[in-house]
């Protein structure tokens, strides 16, 4: 359908599109509606004819502006911090690392510093594991050992990433910094593409139970915050 629209006059009515592709009108209309929602196709207000959308031009570049992501997730990041009692961050992939684009303080009114703009390693943080798990194209830079718990074997990392995809969330305990742990879940844009990760982090005893496993209540809070942000992005 996109190839058809790229041809000739570049503007087609629904009937022409359906006829050219040998599709029932209803089916063609459904596909057009979907393409319109992701802005791959635009409909002329007056003629009702369809043409290629502006989003196609930006396919190769950044999918979602980081400041837009922060703005749309503000309410739900705040709510996650209030529910969990932990500090909340949102990370996106940038240049082989996790770029922190949003940070909400732990709600205990202790002195804390805004960490927006920090770069974190992909393989040693919960945010990074989420980003790696859902984007096979991300380069696997050398798995540098940061603590004695950092995953340094590519096979071991692949196993963990498979678990992340199966469970829909990632965690990390003392793999980046001794005494620190984190939980993160994927933020999806409309259409399901993972555009970032939201998560909580802090001292191991706050994030994990006595067996060094992430607390189930926190996992479900993080997962529901990620879903809420994803819904907000689809609106």
């Amino acid at each position, binding site marked *: 359908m996109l190839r058809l629209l790229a041809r000739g006059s570049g503007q087609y009515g629904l009937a022409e599109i359906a006829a050219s592709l040998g599709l029932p009108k209803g089916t063609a209309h459904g596909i057009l509606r979907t393409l319109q929602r992701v802005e791959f196709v635009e409909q002329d207000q007056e003629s009702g004819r369809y043409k290629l959308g502006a989003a196609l031009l930006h396919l190769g570049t950044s999918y979602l502006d980081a*400041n*837009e992501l922060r703005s749309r997730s503000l309410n739900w990041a*705040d709510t996650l911090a*209030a529910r969990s009692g932990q500090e909340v961050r949102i990370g996106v992939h940038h240049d082989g690392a996790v770029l922190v684009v949003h940070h909400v*303080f732990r709600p205990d009114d202790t002195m804390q510093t805004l960490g927006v703009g920090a770069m974190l390693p992909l393989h040693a943080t919960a945010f990074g594991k989420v980003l790696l798990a859902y984007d096979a194209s991300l380069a696997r830079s050398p798995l540098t050992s940061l603590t004695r718990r950092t995953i340094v074997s590519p096979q071991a990392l692949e196993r963990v990433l498979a678990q992340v995809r199966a469970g829909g969330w990632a965690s990390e305990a003392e793999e980046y910094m001794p005494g620190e742990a984190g939980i993160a879940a994927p933020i999806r844009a409309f259409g399901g593409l993972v555009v970032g990760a939201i998560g909580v982090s802090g001292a191991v005893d706050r994030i994990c139970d006595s067996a060094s496993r992430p607390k189930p209540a926190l996992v479900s809070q993080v997962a529901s915050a990620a879903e809420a942000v994803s819904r907000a992005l689809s609106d």
Partner: protein
Amino acid sequence: MAQRYVMAIDQGTTSTRCILFDHSARLVSVVQREHRQYHPRPGWVEQDAVEIWRNVDRIMPQTLRDGGVGADQVVALGITNQRETAVVWDRHTGVPVGRAIVWEDIRTEELVGELTARPESSGIRERCGLPLATYFSAPKLKWLLDNTPGLRERAVRGDLLFGTIDTWLIWNLTGGVSGGLHVTDVTNASRTMLMNITTQAWDAELLSFFDIPAPMLPEIRASTEIHGKTTRVVPGVTISAALGDQHAALFGQTCFAKGETKCTYGTGSFLLMNTGDTLVKSEHGLLTTIGYQLGGEPATYALEGSIAVTGSLVQWFRDKLGLIQSAPEIETLARTVTDNGGCYIVPAFSGLFAPHWHAEARGIIVGLTSYISKGHLARAVLEATAWQTREVVDAMAAELGVSSKALKVDGGMTADHLLMQTIADVLDVPVLRPMVAETVSLGAAYAAGLAVGYWPDLEGLRRNWHLAARWTPQWNDDDRQAEYANWKRAVELTFGWAKPRKR
């Protein structure tokens, strides 16, 4: 027992939001709908009150569905609204006589000039706490009555009702033509120029000055008061609070003590300081207003610095110049450069509000050279909000002889980190964001929940305030002084631009 919640409706300038909060003031669900802005002539800004009402009709049930909450679990509803915007409708049909005239609208500029020239105008500020300006409801209402044939007669006969948006929504929610309540709260009434700021009742002298028929005015009530139950949309919910959006934000930031201050960044930006039981008459261009009034208690006063154009400048940059796709992208664009390149934008779109009150001022972009890129313009857009904040903070300090040591902020624009950092830089004090950026809605929910005993007292609410982010100043003093001086020169260039039209 099932969980119980409080609902807030925040009817803002560009959109209407419905939010459910739980007992710990955490957001449960939120639904938002934008409404159309009409600009039929330069300086005119109108909205369709019926469209706003239809939006409420859609988002209230949707918010309950999203949160998985039944109407019987909602113990209270608080309403907060864009202020000053004036609606007039027929009490028998419920149909507005025309589009609502929005607070930013400056069609009454000439009318305000004529009114100011009258000798009686000198006593106006003393009575209502406000300077004569296009911003407030009374000139808008007078314009409608003067310019619509037959309207004044219908108003005198009692066929028409006037209200700010709180009044319009409560009237509709409580039945409309079948027994709808015609009420407003004291904070909204304090923005009309028709209420006496000392007695908090409609003032006969003000009504006669503006020639407003008394039968069309709503009853003034406290900010927290059980108005009654909704009979439409989601029937059976207790409406127990109404207050203007900026007053709700003051409440949501838990600025309950004298001297506590907040600034809300939205379409415009508004710095409010709680002045307790003291009615401060400003000599530095600030407004005297009601902070809030709890049912059965005396009103709490506030001092306000109103900035007309902040977020709306970003929207203009997006919609009219088309340099960005979405408002948050202004930060991305601004970060492509490291400073403003010598360029300043003074967005005097509706004249300049506090502390200048120059109705005839119009916006400028100054300092253009071939070096200036769209990135510099984006910086200048954000810096305009920061410097306008500095001006009202300075006015507040001059008024009270003390300057504050930090600024509490809220509103959608707090998502813009570059803006927040710039505000810290130009004010030279830390900027603090609380955990709930939707402070306007939270304040309405607090007020509503307090009225029905869902939250016991103000101190309990204070404990819900937590710091979510802090920005600390980074500029050096010399740069700050030099930039401020440039900004002030740019502001002076806007004065005296608009001239009355020759007839």
